[in-house]
């Protein structure tokens, strides 16, 4: 039905600018899949018939952005025909992943939007019965970074001062962000506290419905530290509404006046990459096709614009490199989550 509605809206959209779209659906690649010649993969390169990207969330969030933007660019770069974005919300992605693993595990036309939140949920067994290596990790392009921020009039002017205060009395500083305990924003606290040797369970954490609400709580003094992302604090930092003690990354960001955790001598980093997964039983030809297509998108000037507009930094992590990186991340997230009862049995 989702498609039906989108078709409906598309039809109306087309009626808007009657002559704008030159290519109708006549040039949809008609791959003769029924033919048994598919074994001769080298002679007939893989091309998806009805490419689709599943955003395991409602429209409007980060995963939805990934599908819609990258899907548009797949077509724009000539890799595929029109890519349909399907929203399959529920359980922070659990519904979509369960459905795909059970019913569409060999769908060669299918990609799934992913981010570190995906890795965290795999690590905490929130995708019941599914492991991260049961999916194929295509690649990540573009990353946001986590930040440690305080009010401009906060007594903490450096990360060292904040760390010293937390070490002296872990309960004295209230942290907050846009996700629950064990979620993406809280993970920045888990990582930093583990690094400085403080039990994260002793550090107060207040969860808000999204980073915007958490920032309002920081401005109003309800929380003392907000562990958001670069993209959502860009405007506030520029306006002087908050002070960023550290960007949890290894490179300085243009126009974003804050030191990185690495240059301050810490090891904690938190890149929030935007990437794609594929079902576990996707064929190698199809997987290579998607890795290649995503690589083309990453190299395109159109992506550079879309990426910058959305406050993401360049990142290119493809195929095997991305798989190794992501599975490693899942392992370390799991190790961190275990002591706090955040891993579901």
């Amino acid at each position, binding site marked *: 039905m989702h498609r039906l509605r989108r078709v409906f809206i598309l039809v109306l*959209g087309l009626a808007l600018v009657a002559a704008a779209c030159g290519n109708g659906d006549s040039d949809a690649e008609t791959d003769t899949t029924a033919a048994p010649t598919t074994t001769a993969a080298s002679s007939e390169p893989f091309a998806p018939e009805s490419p689709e990207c599943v955003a395991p969330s409602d429209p409007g969030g980060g995963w939805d952005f990934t599908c*819609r933007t990258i899907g548009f660019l797949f077509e724009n770069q000539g890799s595929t025909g029109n890519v349909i974005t399907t929203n399959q919300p*529920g359980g922070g992605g*659990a519904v979509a992943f369960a459905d795909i693993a059970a019913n569409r595990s060999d769908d060669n036309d299918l990609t799934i939007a992913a981010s570190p939140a995906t890795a965290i949920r795999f690590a905490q067994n929130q995708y019941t019965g599914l492991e991260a290596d049961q999916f194929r990790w295509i690649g990540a392009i573009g990353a946001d970074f986590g930040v440690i921020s305080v009010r401009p009039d906060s007594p903490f002017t450096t990360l060292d001062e904040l760390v010293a205060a937390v070490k002296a009395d872990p309960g004295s500083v209230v942290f907050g962000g846009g996700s*629950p305990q064990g979620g993406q924003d809280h993970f920045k606290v888990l990582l930093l506290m583990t690094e400085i040797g403080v039990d994260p369970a002793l550090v107060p954490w*207040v969860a808000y419905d999204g980073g915007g609400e958490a920032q309002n709580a920081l401005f109003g003094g309800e929380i003392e530290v907000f562990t958001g992302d670069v*993209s959502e604090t860009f405007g506030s930092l520029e306006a002087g509404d908050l002070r960023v003690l550290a960007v949890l990354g290894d490179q300085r960001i243009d126009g974003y006046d804050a030191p990185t955790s690495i240059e301050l001598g810490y090891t904690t980093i938190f890149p929030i990459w935007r990437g794609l997964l594929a079902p576990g039983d996707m064929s190698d030809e199809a997987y290579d096709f998607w890795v290649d297509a995503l690589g083309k998108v990453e190299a395109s000037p159109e992506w550079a614009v879309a990426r910058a507009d959305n406050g993401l930094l360049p990142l290119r992590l493809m195929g095997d490199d991305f798989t190794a990186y992501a599975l490693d991340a899942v392992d370390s997230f799991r190790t961190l989550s275990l002591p706090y009862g955040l891993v579901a049995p």
Partner: protein
Amino acid sequence: MGWLLTSLNFVFAADFNLWDGFVAALTFENLILAVIGCLLGTLIGVLPGIGPITGVAILFPITLGLGLGDASTLILLASVYYGTQYGGSTTSILLNVPGEASSVVTTLDGYQMAKQGRAGPALAISAIGSFIAGIGAVIGLMLFGPPLAEITVQFQSPEKFMVVILAFATVSSLAGKSLIKGLLAVVFGVMLATVGADLQTGVVRYTFGELKLQEGLDFVIIAIGLFAVSEVLSLLEDKVLGEETAFVKAERIWVTFKEFMFSLGAIIRGGLVGFFIGLLPGTGASVAGFMSYGLERRFSDRDGTFGKGDIRGVAAPESANNAAAGGSLIPLFTLGIPGSGTTAVLLGILISMGIRPGSGNVFEDSPELIWTLIASMFIGNAILLLLNFPLVNVFVQILRIPTWFLMPVILVISYIGVYSVNNSSLDITIMTIFGVIGYFARKMDVPLAPILLGLILGDDLEQNFRRSLLADDGNYLTFLNGPLNIGLAIAVVVVLFLPQILDLIRGGRIKEEFADSSAEV
């Protein structure tokens, strides 16, 4: 008063001001886009299950694909947004199916009016009220934006908790005959709101292992079940028992001048309540409708006509909705904080156009787009009002369809609409269950609107309560800390005991009042 002069200077005398915004917005192509957007939005809003947020979020990438300019995109999306809001109210009034949280209370008097053959005036006053309040809110945004943003920051979790309590205090106005039953209904709604993953700990509650319930019960599904499905069941019963009550044929399409003047007070009060409630991020938009209806009924219902088809009961919440949408732009523009789902989508759109709200003054930094956006809101509101002269006529014709045919068709459309949102058969089951619950609730005279009030605000109630205590080390006095909280607490008492207080002031007749209310309970 310095800032007022500065504001006026901004609006009319800056290098790129409101007039330039209108000039940029008012091209032939853009007007066509506005008309199409309003029509498209109304259609999307009428379809059950798809609200303004989804409508705007899905259409935005399409506008990119069409290669529209920034100004055209903003106008198209603003028109779609206002159209969906209006479409949602249309189904509330005609079919007793609230399309979104903010139009639940519109069903109370709107549907009664439709039954009495006054669907035309109800739809018209909804459009007029939205127009006046929407324009008023945009003017408020232009003149008082920056100073009001400071109020937003004052409202932290304890204050928001008190606002939610204030909204609950107006429940008696939704309760119908029995306050006790109204309170039971609210508590049931709050219980429903606890289903799903807890925002603080991520712990999953009352889902019975069902993954799809982790994000909570979907408001739209519950609303359609409780209102539409149970309505069909009741009508079916009436038909079988031979007690069928047909809709009175609509005699008038447009609203009379007298009705308009009668509603004007409600529109202005509703607009003011909505505008200020809209300033509060998160809590804003959904509370506005309930709060304005409750207050309007508390203060203006002298003849007991509310809930029986009083036009002010449509005017107040519909104006409040639209004003809240305008009010919620203030924290967005000045602090970069989206106050509602729709403003969150709008924030994404503005960022993709190179504006970063929250960084200094968006009016100074990117005047072209901001003034064009504001101009497009005026235009969207105006086009929608103009479109409604013919549209009201079309919609009212729907009621000419005989009930035995109309209601099953609505039911089928509702089921298809709900299924289309998530492709989930569980949603269908839940909707049916709540249809049956709604049917028995009607039988027992338990009012339905308070259940939805509880469902909508239950999460805000719980989370703000827990946040307040978490952030203040478990200190309960945090809820009475500061003048804002004390003021809100006084407001709660006033709203709860207004009739008694008025009698005290008039000196007497308290006894009768108590006798009356105890008889009701």
